[in-house]
C-alpha cells in the first residue's frame, strides 16, 4: 500500500487545515463502534498522522440495546504534530442512539460537530436512556453545537435495498456509513477500510459488497449533502522515517515476549488464567505456536504463576499475566520465585479496584502491591511501560533482567495501555540488547547458591544436566550450599542479599531523560500510561515559558540511580497518578523530598488539561 494513495481523497468543498482533531464514535455495544474507531485510526495512520486512541466498553458482554450502561465508545486524537493523548474534549462526536448521546455529549466542545442517528431516537430508546422528551427537539442544541441530524439507519437501508441480505444484516452495516461520513469530514482515505472489508468478509461477497457500498454512501453523503459546508485536512505529522504499524499494549507485551524467546533461544511457558484486561495477551500468544511459546490456561492464577515457576526451574522463561485481583492471588507463588531465585516475569494489567472494582476501566493503583504484596521481605524488580508500543521493549527488558539476575520481574501495564493503540515505528529485532542466559553445566565445585559477583545471581541449571542434581525449596537456605538453614546470621545475610540483588539491577538503568530544563520550579514525575498526558501538559506550560520539566519512570524498582539528584534541582515535585498517591509515597520515603501528588481515580486516563492546571497551581503556591 503506497502513501501516495494514502494521501489521495477528493475534495470539492472548501477544506480547512487543522493541526489536530479529537473525535469519538459512540453507540450501542452492538453498533460496532470499536471496529469503526479502529478503522478510522488506520485511515488516519495511513494519512501519516500521529495518533492516540481510547477504546471504552462496558463490563457486560452484550448489554441490552439502548441502555446507558450498554454504551460503547472509541475516541482518538490525530494530528500533524506529535499527539500525546486521545485528547480531553471532543471536536466531533458521533452518537448512534440516545443513550450514547446522553453519556457522551458533556465531553463535546461547544461549537463541536455533533452527528446523531435520528432513526435511533424513537420512544423506546428515549425511554431507555431516560429522556422525558426528545433532546433533538431542544433548539438550544443546534445553537451550542454544529448539529447534524442524519437518518443513518434509513440511508444505510436505502443503499442496500437490492442486496440479498436480511434486515438485521443490513442494519449491521450502518456504522460504516458513519465511518464514511466522518472520513469525508476529515478527508481521511477510506482505501485501507475498503481493503480491510475485503480481508475480513472475504468469504461472503454480499457482506463485502454491502459494507463497501455503505462506506462509500456515507462518504458521498458528506460530499453531496447540503448540510456539510466544509471539511478538514490534517497534514501528515513530522514522524521519524521508517515503517510503522498500529500497536496496542497487550499485543506489544506478547510480541516482546516472542522477541525475547527468539533471541535467548530459551523455551517459554506462559501460564495465565483469563481476566480483563489481561486476557488478550493469552489470546495473542496462543496464536503463535510456531514460536514454540507454550501457553497454559491454568485453573486459577495460583496455578498459572506456580506453573511459570516450575518452567523456570526447568530452564525455561516462566511468564504469567493477570490483573489486580489475580496478582493478589499470585503473591505467595511470586515469593517462592524470590527465595528460589528463579527468573520469572509477571504482567499486571491494572484495572479499577479494589476487589472486582471496574474490570474494564484503567487505574494505576497496583504499584504498592507490586512492591510489597507478599509476605516478609520479598523484593522483585518492577518495570512500567509508558505507551502501548513501549510495552514491547519493556516485556523484552523484563525477560532480559529476570534471566540475568535470576529474579522475578513485575511489569505494570494498565487497561488504557493494553487496549489503546499508537502508530509504532517497527524496530529491528537484531538491534535489541542481548539476553544472557548461561546455564551451569560444570559439576566442579557446584553449589546451587553460589553467586555471580557482579549480579549476585545464582547459577541456573537445567534438570537433565549430569552431576548437577540438587534440591531447592521455599525454606531459608544457607548461602552457597543452598541447604536448609535456620542459622540466624545466615537468614539476615540472605534477606539482605536478595534485596541487594534487586538493587544491583540499577546497573541496567540508562541515565534518566529530563523533558525540559535541568532545574527549575516544578518537576513532574510520572510512570506508566500517564506519559502522554503529562508530556502534553508540561509542554503547554513550557510553551508559556514556565520553568517546568518532567521525568517519566520506566524502572520503578530499583529506581534510577540519578533520580534523587534530579529531584533536588526543582523547587517543587508533582506526581500525577491514577491512584491515591503511591509513587509519591515511595519518592518521599526514598529521597525525603516534599513531593505532592495529583490524583484522580475515575477509571479513566488523566486529562492533560487537569495536569496542566495542577502545575500552574503549584507554580502559584511557590510565589
Amino acid at each position: 500500500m503506497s502513501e501516495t494513495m494514502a494521501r489521495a481523497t477528493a475534495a470539492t468543498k472548501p477544506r480547512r487545515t487543522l493541526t489536530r482533531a479529537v473525535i469519538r464514535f459512540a453507540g450501542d455495544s452492538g453498533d460496532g463502534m470499536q471496529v469503526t474507531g479502529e478503522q478510522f485510526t488506520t485511515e488516519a495512520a495511513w494519512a501519516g498522522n500521529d495518533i492516540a486512541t481510547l477504546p471504552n466498553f462496558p463490563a457486560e458482554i452484550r448489554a441490552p440495546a439502548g441502555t446507558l450502561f450498554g454504551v460503547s465508545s472509541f475516541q482518538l486524537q490525530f494530528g500533524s504534530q506529535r499527539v500525546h493523548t486521545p485528547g480531553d474534549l471532543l471536536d466531533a462526536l458521533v452518537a448512534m442512539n440516545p443513550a450514547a448521546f446522553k453519556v457522551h455529549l458533556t465531553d463535546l466542545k461547544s461549537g463541536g460537530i455533533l452527528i446523531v442517528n435520528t432513526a435511533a431516537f424513537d420512544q423506546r430508546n428515549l425511554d431507555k436512556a431516560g429522556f422525558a422528551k426528545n433532546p433533538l427537539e431542544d433548539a438550544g442544541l443546534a445553537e451550542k453545537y454544529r448539529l447534524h441530524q442524519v437518518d443513518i439507519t434509513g440511508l444505510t437501508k436505502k443503499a442496500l435495498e437490492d442486496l440479498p441480505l436480511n434486515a438485521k444484516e443490513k442494519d449491521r452495516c450502518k456504522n460504516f456509513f458513519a465511518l464514511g461520513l466522518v472520513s469525508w469530514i476529515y478527508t481521511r482515505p477510506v482505501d485501507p477500510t475498503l481493503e480491510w472489508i475485503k480481508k475480513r468478509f472475504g468469504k461472503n461477497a454480499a457482506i463485502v459488497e454491502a459494507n463497501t457500498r455503505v462506506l462509500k454512501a456515507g462518504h458521498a453523503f458528506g460530499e453531496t449533502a447540503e448540510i456539510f459546508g466544509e471539511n478538514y485536512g490534517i497534514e501528515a505529522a513530522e514522524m521519524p522515517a521508517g515503517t510503522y504499524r498500529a500497536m496496542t499494549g497487550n499485543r506489544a507485551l506478547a510480541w516482546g515476549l516472542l522477541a525475547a524467546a527468539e533471541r535467548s533461544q530459551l523455551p517459554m511457558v506462559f501460564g495465565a488464567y483469563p481476566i480483563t484486561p489481561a486476557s488478550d495477551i493469552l489470546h495473542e500468544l496462543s496464536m503463535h505456536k510456531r514460536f514454540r511459546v507454550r501457553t497454559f490456561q491454568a485453573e486459577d492464577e495460583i496455578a498459572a504463576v506456580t506453573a511459570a515457576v516450575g518452567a523456570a526451574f526447568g530452564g525455561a522463561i516462566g511468564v504469567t499475566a493477570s490483573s489486580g485481583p489475580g496478582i493478589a492471588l499470585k503473591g505467595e507463588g511470586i515469593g517462592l520465585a524470590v527465595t528460589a531465585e528463579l527468573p520469572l516475569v509477571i504482567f499486571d494489567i491494572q484495572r479499577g479496584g479494589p476487589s472486582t472494582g471496574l474490570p474494564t476501566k484503567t487505574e494505576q493503583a497496583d504499584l504498592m502491591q507490586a512492591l510489597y504484596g507478599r509476605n516478609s521481605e520479598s523484593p522483585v524488580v518492577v518495570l512500567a511501560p509508558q505507551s502501548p508500543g513501549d510495552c514491547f521493549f519493556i516485556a523484552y527488558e523484563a525477560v532480559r533482567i529476570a534471566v540475568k539476575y535470576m529474579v522475578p520481574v513485575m511489569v505494570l501495564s494498565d487497561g488504557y495501555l493494553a487496549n489503546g493503540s499508537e502508530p509504532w515505528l517497527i524496530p529491528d529485532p537484531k538491534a535489541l540488547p542481548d539476553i544472557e542466559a548461561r546455564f551451569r553445566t560444570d559439576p566442579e565445585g557446584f553449589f546451587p547458591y553460589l553467586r555471580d559477583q557482579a549480579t549476585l545471581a545464582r547459577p541456573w541449571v537445567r534438570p537433565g544436566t549430569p552431576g548437577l542434581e540438587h534440591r531447592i525449596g521455599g525454606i531459608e537456605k544457607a548461602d552457597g550450599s543452598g541447604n536448609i538453614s535456620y542459622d540466624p546470621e545466615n537468614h539476615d545475610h540472605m534477606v539482605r542479599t536478595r534485596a541487594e540483588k534487586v538493587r544491583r539491577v540499577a546497573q541496567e538503568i540508562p541515565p534518566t531523560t529530563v523533558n525540559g530544563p535541568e532545574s527549575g520550579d516544578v518537576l513532574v514525575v510520572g510512570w506508566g500510561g500517564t506519559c502522554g498526558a503529562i508530556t502534553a501538559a508540561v509542554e503547554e506550560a513550557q510553551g508559556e515559558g514556565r520553568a517546568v520539566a518532567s521525568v517519566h519512570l520506566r524502572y520503578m524498582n530499583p529506581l534510577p540511580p540519578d533520580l534523587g539528584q534530579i529531584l533536588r534541582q526543582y523547587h517543587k515535585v508533582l506526581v500525577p497518578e491514577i491512584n491515591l498517591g503511591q509513587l509519591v509515597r515511595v519518592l518521599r520515603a526514598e529521597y525525603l523530598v516534599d513531593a505532592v501528588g495529583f490524583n484522580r481515580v475515575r477509571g479513566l486516563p488523566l486529562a492533560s488539561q487537569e495536569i496542566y492546571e495542577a502545575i500552574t497551581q503549584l507554580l502559584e503556591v511557590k510565589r
Partner: protein
Amino acid sequence: MSPTAGAPEATRPTPRYTKKDFESDQDVRWCPGCGDYAILSAVQKMMPDLGIPREDIVFISGIGCSSRFPYYMNTYGFHTIHGRAPAVATGLKLARPDLKIFVVTGDGDGLSIGGNHLLHVLRRNVDLTILLFNNRIYGLTKGQYSPTSELGKVTKSTPQGSADRPVSPCVFALACGASFVARTVDRNVAHMEETLKRASRHRGAAFVEILQNCNVYNDLAWNVLYDRESKVMAELRLQHGKPLVWGPPDDRRGLVLEGVRPKVVKVGEVAEDALWVHDEREPASALLLSQLWAPDYPVPVGVLVDVEAPIYEDQVLQQEDKAIADRGPGDVGQLLRSGETWTIS
C-alpha cells in the same frame, strides 16, 4: 528451537544404579518410626529399575512432612509451596517434556489446599507420577484433622470431633479422570515397590495413594491393614483379570455384583464365573470398587485403573509441530511487519 531438545545426555547409556545412588547427602528429618521412611526406601529401591538417568528425574513437592521427600532423593528436586506441586510440575513438564517428573504430596497438601490442582492435573492427564502420602492428619502442623480423617475425628482443632465426612483420594482421582489410580501401604514394602514401578511406567497422570502411618499424631490409623488378624480379612489384593477374592486359605471370600451393589460371598458358595473379575481397563468399575472399605467390605489394594488417555503436553507439542509444518517456524522480524503497515520517509 525446540525446548524438548537440548538434552543430549538423553542418548548416553543409562548407568547401572543401585539404591545408594538415589540417596542424597541430607539428614532425613522425619520422626523416628514415621511411615515416610519406608516409602523413601521403597522409592529409592525401585528407581534403578526405571532405567532413567538420574539427572533426568525430578521430584516436586508441596509442604508437609511428606513434602520433605525431595531433599532425600539424589535427583533434581523442588520443595515448593503448600498445595501447588501439581501446578509447578505441570509448568515444568510443559517446558521439559523430556524429564521424568514425580510429585509428592500429602492428604492435606494434595486434597485440602491443593485439591483443585489435583483435579486439573488429573483431568489434563499430564505425564506425572503423583504420590499422595495419606496419613489422615496434618503432620507438620502438629496434628489437625485432614480431609481424609474419619468423621468425628478428635484432634487439636476438633476437641469434640470433626464434623465433616472424609473424601476418598482414589474415588476423587477416578472422578477427575485419572488414567492410572492405585493404592498401596507403607508397611508392605514389596507391594509398594511393585505399585510404584507400575505407576512410574504409566504414560499420563499416574496417581498412587500410599496409606502411611503418622506414629506421632495419628498412630495406626490404617491398623486394619497392619494388624495380622484384621489384615487377612480386610486386604483385597487387586489383580487384573482375576476375580476379586481375599481372606485366609481356609475361608476365602469374594465379591459379586447384585445390580450395582457389590456383595461379599464365600468363595465356593457361588459359581466361579459369578465372581466380579477385576478389569484395570474399566474406570467405571474401578469407581465402584474404590468406594469399598472395611468393615463391610475389604479394602482394595493395588492398581484400580490403568488406561490410555490423551496427554496434555503431547497435544500441545503436536499443535506446535503442526503450526510449524504448516507455516514454518516463527520469525519475529516477519511478525513485526505482518498485517497493516505504512512507511514514512
